């Protein structure tokens, strides 16, 4: 990218709230049910049906606002956003426009180089989702499933503070992480429970005004957002550099072509003619309710990260990795607590290395992992006692992950107990030294590197079970 241009990006994120029922009726929000089975006169938009707000949706929305340091307004208003689309049977979406329930706030995005960027939030408001149109189901028409129609969403609108695709990615990661910590959204972009639109413009570096922006929609993964932004920024720069002008329009990201295309006129958003919904009185959130919710907030990712560094003496990098999800952070803390005799850094190394590798391999989440914190701590106990070596521990761990058995059981039945008996080890050491006179002579002549060869031979002979500390000692003596 040419350095004389600076991208200016604002993101609008829609997050589906994990309530059991819809925003304004008591239909289930269950994903994947039989089409049009979770519908009623309210969400079907039948005449005379009246909306009644879901308290839990407000609770989750307010918690989210508090987590990002937003102001929560005592009174807010629901507005109708009018447009026609088959998956919106009322002909309007109930949203918030002039008076959202919250405004301001910040998201601390952490970039890959470890530095942080504060991205300001403009607002968070509460609204309802539309149904789903399936254009491929029948030959002649579009099939409509209204199960999702009316599911609560929060829309999180950032200020145009984002300056690169990488920052956008970091912003989204922090946002999603926090929503998951709060337990208000499952954060699944592929299934659409988290959706992101980007407003993108570029300007000459150092300029204070904004260029003409485009809105890019339809990015259904974090990497998709990153790629779409990079693509659109490059496109705008090349338009401007060839003397053209950026046209304000809505674009769709095409995953297959890895390019943006203009939205067809039929899909294009219209003049929404917002007005206050006469079916709904103002939403009032009393101070004591907000105060109660503030108290109920879990420890949030940044705070937990800091605490991990302070309390366990972990490097910032480790704290960042271990607190990626609440479940992983819980797993670490529980293991560290049960393996009190083990250095927390060692526990961290194991979880970041072996445990995460197995999870990646199996594509399974930590809370479904067979090796419980208690079992992992049991393995650390065996290492600390000297029953097994660190090397054997890897074998034991693999076995634990495969069978779900305890470390002690595996060590016992597999004969993996570490050999710490000096006489047994000495015998092997002497045999190895005697069997390799050339290397022994090299070592005596000062070639230190050969020592590793002897270590390896002894470990091989004992199938890795010899206590490495004792092997080291005895070898030095024997070669001395």
């Amino acid at each position, binding site marked *: 990218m040419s350095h004389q241009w600076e991208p200016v990006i604002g993101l609008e994120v829609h997050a589906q709230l994990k*309530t*059991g*029922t819809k925003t304004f009726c*008591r*239909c*289930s929000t269950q994903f994947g049910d*039989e*089409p*049009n*089975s979770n*519908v*009623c*006169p309210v969400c*079907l938009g*039948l005449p005379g049906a009246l909306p*009644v*707000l*879901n*308290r*839990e*949706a*407000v609770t989750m929305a307010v918690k989210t606002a508090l987590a990002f340091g937003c102001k929560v307004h005592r009174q807010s*208003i*629901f507005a109708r956003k*009018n447009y*026609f*689309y*088959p998956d919106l049977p009322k002909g309007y979406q109930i949203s918030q426009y002039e008076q959202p329930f919250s405004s301001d706030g910040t998201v601390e995005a952490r970039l890959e180089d470890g530095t942080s960027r504060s991205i300001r939030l403009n607002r968070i408001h509460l609204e309802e989702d539309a149904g789903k*149109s*399936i*254009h491929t*189901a*029948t030959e*002649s*028409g*579009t*099939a*409509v*499933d*209204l199960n999702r129609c009316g599911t609560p969403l929060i829309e999180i609108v950032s200020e145009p503070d984002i300056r690169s695709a990488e920052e956008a990615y970091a912003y989204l990661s922090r946002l999603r992480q926090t929503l998951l910590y709060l337990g208000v959204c499952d954060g699944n972009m592929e299934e659409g429970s988290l959706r992101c639109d980007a407003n993108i413009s570029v300007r000459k570096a150092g300029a204070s005004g904004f260029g003409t922006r485009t809105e890019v929609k339809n990015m259904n993964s974090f990497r998709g957002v990153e790629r779409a932004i990079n693509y659109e920024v490059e496109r705008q720069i090349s338009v401007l550099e060839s003397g053209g002008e950026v046209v304000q329009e809505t674009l769709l990201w095409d995953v297959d072509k890895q390019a943006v295309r203009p939205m*067809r006129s*039929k*899909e294009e958003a*219209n*003049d929404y*003619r917002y007005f*206050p919904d006469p079916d*709904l*009185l*103002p*939403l*009032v959130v009393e101070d004591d309710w907000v105060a109660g919710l503030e108290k109920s907030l879990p420890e949030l990712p940044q705070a937990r990260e800091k605490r991990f560094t302070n309390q366990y003496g972990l490097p910032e990098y480790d704290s960042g990795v271990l607190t990626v999800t609440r479940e992983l952070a819980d797993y670490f803390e529980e293991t560290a607590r049960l393996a009190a005799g083990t250095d927390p850094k060692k526990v961290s190394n194991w979880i970041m290395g072996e445990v995460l590798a197995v999870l990646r391999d199996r594509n399974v989440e930590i809370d479904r992992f067979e090796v419980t914190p208690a079992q992992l701590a049991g393995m650390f106990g065996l290492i600390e006692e000297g029953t097994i070596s660190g090397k054997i521990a890897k074998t034991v761990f693999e076995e634990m992950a495969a069978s779900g058995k305890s470390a002690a059981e595996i060590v016992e039945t597999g004969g993996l107990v570490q050999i710490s008996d000096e006489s047994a080890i000495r015998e092997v050491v002497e045999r190895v030294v005697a069997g390799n006179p050339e290397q022994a002579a090299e070592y005596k002549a000062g070639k230190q590197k050969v020592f590793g060869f002897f270590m390896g031979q002894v470990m091989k002979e004992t199938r890795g079970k010899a206590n490495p500390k004792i092997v080291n000692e005895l070898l030095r003596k024997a070669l001395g």
Partner: protein
Amino acid sequence: MAVSKEEVRKIADLARLRLDEAETGRMTRDMNEILDYVDKLNEVDTENVSPLSWLEGKRTPMQDDRVVRFDNTGQALKNAPRSEGRFFIVPRVIE
């Protein structure tokens, strides 16, 4: 006139209403009469009076997050001009 024919055409378009020339004229006249009538309110001095959009002290009621099934969804599908299996079918939206 506060509302032009052009604006009436735009609003009709947004509301998916097809008006012919005569209807557009009639609608323009009606809308202007309504606005003129409501405009009388502007004669009242509302300096230092805060807007009353809802009755004072009223707030929207809320319900608990408990599923209540609506068991007549079959009828809802039957009422639609077209349905197939469990789906509502509408004219094709995108090609």
